[in-house]
């Protein structure tokens, strides 16, 4: 089973979150002022989602909105690497 979610963790919790559910997660960088956050968004396996919920590592979890709408709601600015 899967749960579609957007999960935001503070920079200080990124390593712990990766250690918990996998190194491939939390690679989307975002900033709010000077604060740095890392985001995963998409289909989480239920055990991955539950682990994040129960860990208390998340700054924010959303299961309803689109990725871009979560960023807007939380006033997070995605860090875009300027590439062509």
């Amino acid at each position: 089973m899967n749960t579609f979610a957007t999960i935001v963790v503070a920079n200080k919790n990124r390593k712990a979150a990766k250690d918990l559910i996998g190194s491939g997660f939390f690679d989307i960088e975002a900033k709010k002022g000077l604060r740095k956050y890392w985001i995963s968004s998409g289909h989480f396996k239920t055990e991955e989602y539950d682990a994040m919920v129960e860990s208390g590592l998340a700054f924010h979890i959303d299961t309803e909105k689109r990725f871009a709408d979560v960023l807007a709601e939380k006033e997070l600015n995605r860090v875009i690497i300027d590439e062509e």
Partner: protein
Amino acid sequence: MIGIGATLFKVPTMHGSRAAGFNPATLFASGEEGAWYDPSDLSTMFQNSDGTGAPVVDSPVGYIADKSGNGNHAIQATSDKRPTLRQSGSLYYLEYDGANNCLATSAIDFTGTDEMTVFTGAKKIANTTMVLAELATSVGAVYGAFRLASLNDVWRWGTRGNGLTVNVNASTYGANSTSVITAISDISTPVATIRVDGVQKATSSTTQGSGNFGNHVLNVGARNNGATLQLEGHIYGMIVRAATSSSEEISSTEAYMATKTGVTL
């Protein structure tokens, strides 16, 4: 070498009947390297990257099999980076969320050729720089690579041997454009051509350097396994063929892809 005659890009007017009975597998009948991904064929997809979990509409796709016979299956090991299988009427597509979705192959050995044709049916929801398909981690950083992408309000095909990337743009295709796109390259000729909805939109004979395409990963829907240039849009099908293609092959494949994409040529 191109060796396909002067009429390569003079494709006759397409007819819907041209798609009937055409099987893209014939594009690989002579052993051409490449890949063919078909989201409308549910038997080729799985939710998990290890090939488990039957595909379900509105659920993730972590594995899509290559129907070309070359075994270049595309996978995504990290669950949140998997695109979503969607259905709209009779059409099926992979929905990429613009966050980090990507499917990628193992390295495909294209070192035996300097020719390439890519066919796809795609929709762009955003109006930004987004990868549909890219051979290698970055076309700008690696020799023997290509990229088919959205760049603002154009579809862009970029290709290179050991020279600078040569880009050709098809305009104007802004946000919410749905298109059948064909991209063709021959490094040694040299030529780079982009066609949209059965019409040639741009071509260039600028040198791409020399050499063949490389032994690189094929990324579908983002750059470098989802790291950047993430697609917010749909992919209805994709064929990557390590050869240039005849006018008949192009027209038949474009007609086929149009039926999969819901586009009228």
